[in-house]
C-alpha cells in the first residue's frame, strides 16, 4: 500500500512539474516576435524602435539590474504592461497575444538571457 501511495505521489508531482515546465526555446521565439523590436535582437534595449522612444527599453542583458526583478515581476510586466509594475507605459500589455504558459516560457527565456548566460 505504501509503495502504491508513493508511486501516486511521484506521478502527481511529475504531472505538476510537467504542467508548469517552461520551454525556453519557445520563449526565444516569442521574444523574437514580440520583444526584439524594442528590446533589441541581443536584448540590450536597442531595438529598431528604440531610437525614437521617450523611454529606453529595458536592457535584458543587464544582469545586476535584472536580478532585482522576480519572475513574477517580469510575468506581470509582460502580461499587464509596464504600468502594472510602476514602469513605463510604453511597455504594453501582451495579455491578448500570449497565454499564461507562453508568458512563463518568455519569462524563462528572459531569465536565461539576463542571468544564466554561462549555462
Amino acid at each position: 500500500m505504501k509503495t502504491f501511495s508513493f508511486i501516486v505521489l511521484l506521478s502527481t508531482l511529475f504531472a505538476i512539474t510537467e504542467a508548469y515546465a517552461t520551454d525556453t526555446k519557445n520563449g526565444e521565439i516569442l521574444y523574437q516576435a514580440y520583444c526584439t523590436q524594442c528590446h533589441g535582437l541581443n536584448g540590450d534595449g536597442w531595438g529598431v524602435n528604440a531610437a525614437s522612444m521617450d523611454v529606453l527599453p529595458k536592457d535584458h542583458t543587464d544582469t545586476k539590474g535584472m536580478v532585482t526583478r522576480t519572475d513574477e515581476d517580469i510575468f506581470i510586466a509582460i502580461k499587464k504592461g509596464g504600468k502594472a509594475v510602476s514602469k513605463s507605459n510604453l511597455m504594453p500589455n501582451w495579455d491578448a497575444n500570449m497565454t499564461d504558459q507562453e508568458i512563463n516560457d518568455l519569462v524563462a527565456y528572459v531569465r536565461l538571457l539576463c542571468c544564466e548566460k554561462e549555462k
Partner: protein
Amino acid sequence: MKNHMLTLKLVLGLMLLQVPELSHASEQGQKLYQEKCTACHSISDNSNISLSQRLQEKAPTLYYAGNKFNAAWLEQWLAAPKRLRPGGHFFLNKVKVTDDGDLIDETKLVNHMTVQPKEAKQITQYLMLQTPKADLIALEQVTLGKVNRTLGEKDFNKFKGCGSCHQDEDGYGGVSGPELYTAISRLKPNFIASYIRHPEKWDPKTLMPNRHLNDNSIKKLVNYLNVISE
C-alpha cells in the same frame, strides 16, 4: 409620365449592363490576383494560423481586404506603390546590429510590385469582395472628427505608446509597424477602430497589443490619424 418611364428604363438598362461588367472585372481581378499576388499574400482564413506561420508570411494577409482598405486608395497604390512598413512585413530578418543600436538593413527590403492601372482596378474589385469580418465592422460607428494636434500627438506617442512601433510623420516614430500618416486615406475608419479595439480578432497572431481602450480613447486616436492624414 412617358419621360419618367423612359428614364427609368434607361437607368435599369444601364444597371443591367454594369453588373456583368463588374462581375467580369472581378473575375479578371481574381485571375490577376492568382497570377501576381499569391507568391507573397494569402487570402485564406487566418483564424487558426500559428505564430511560426505568421512570422514566415512574406506580406500581410488579404483575407479581409474588403473590410480593411479604401478601394480608391488601393487601386491607386497598386499602380504606384510606396512603402508602408519601414521594416517590412516582419522586421526581424531585416535587422542589423550596429554600435548605434539595431537598424533596419534597407538592402533587405523588397519593393512591392507595380501593376498597370487597368489591372489595379480589376485586382481592387476582386479584393474588395473579401469581407469575411463584416460583423466586426458593424460594431463600429466611426465619424471622423478633429482633435487638437499637440494633444493628439502626446496621446498617440506618450499615453498610448502607438509611436513606439508606428510613424505618425514620415521618418518619425517606430519602424516595426506600418506607418499611420496615410492611414485615413488607406484604411476604412471602422476598420481602424476595430483593429485598435481587438487586433487579435483580425489577426490572431498579430504583433500589435490590445491596450483595452474604451470608445472615447479609440475615437481620439482615430481623430488624430484624421488630423495628420496625408
